[in-house]
């Protein structure tokens, strides 16, 4: 089990992953071009909402641990118009990383019921996201 300071540090990293994912979905949504753009926008709207919800939940966990969230992201998002296939492939990259990050964090919260349940739930959700995007890319 990690110390409280280490747990908060890891939670801050996870919050950064989710916040950054939100920003990436936001930007990809408006880069989308092509015939399936209108249908795909709903997917990106949902993904934006979910990543923001996850970041909010993590911030709540940090606060419950008696700390304040520390958000550190270095990001400059550019790029021209993008087709759905490319946008999804990019999304799969950061969703997979979020899933891996939660999986690696899980052993470190063993014994803390609140955090363990939360991380397990996140793993389940992120696994679904990765599977969904993978299927869309097939």
């Amino acid at each position, binding site marked *: 089990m990690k110390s409280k300071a280490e747990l908060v540090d890891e939670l801050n*990293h996870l919050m*950064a*992953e989710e916040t*950054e*994912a939100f920003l*990436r979905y936001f930007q990809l949504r408006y880069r989308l071009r092509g015939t399936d753009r209108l249908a795909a926008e709903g997917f990106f709207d949902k993904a934006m909402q979910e990543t923001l919800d996850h970041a909010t939940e993590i911030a709540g966990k940090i606060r419950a641990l008696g700390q304040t969230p520390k958000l*550190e*992201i*270095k*990001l400059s998002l550019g790029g021209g118009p993008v087709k759905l296939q490319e946008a999804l*492939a*990019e999304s799969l*990259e*950061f969703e*997979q*990383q*979020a899933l*891996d*990050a939660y999986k*690696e964090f899980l052993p470190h919260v063993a014994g803390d019921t609140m955090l363990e349940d939360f991380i397990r739930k996140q793993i389940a959700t992120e696994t679904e996201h990765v599977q969904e995007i993978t299927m869309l890319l097939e």
Partner: protein
Amino acid sequence: METWKEFEANELTHSAAHHLLAIHELGLEYGGWARVSDIAKELAITRGSVSINLRTLKKRGYVVTDEHRMVKLSAKGLEIVQAVQSKKAAFKAFLVEVLSVSEHQADIDSCKVEHLISRETTERLAEFVEQFKHSQPAHIR
């Protein structure tokens, strides 16, 4: 080409150069392989960012990945890293040996140009530093 456009046309961005350097450094202990999480820690950015940046580096043939999402420099990537390292070393030596810039500041400034200066300039700089060192009296070399 105008000089400022040449800066923009540089094949390797500063960020890309640092990703390659980090992979090289982290891979030294593991047969060249590095984990995305370790690269993210090394560069103090998110794993998501590393992963997206690696896509570009992979497309350009600088890195290869395996089924466990481990990453390694390709021969082309390693060549880039070695070139960047030698450029940094030459420029840093010039700053420290010739201009008497502190080690710390020279490290920062050489980092800023390490992927931008040409091989020709690097070679001339290295030659100049050597000549300069030998032109100094023995007690201050």
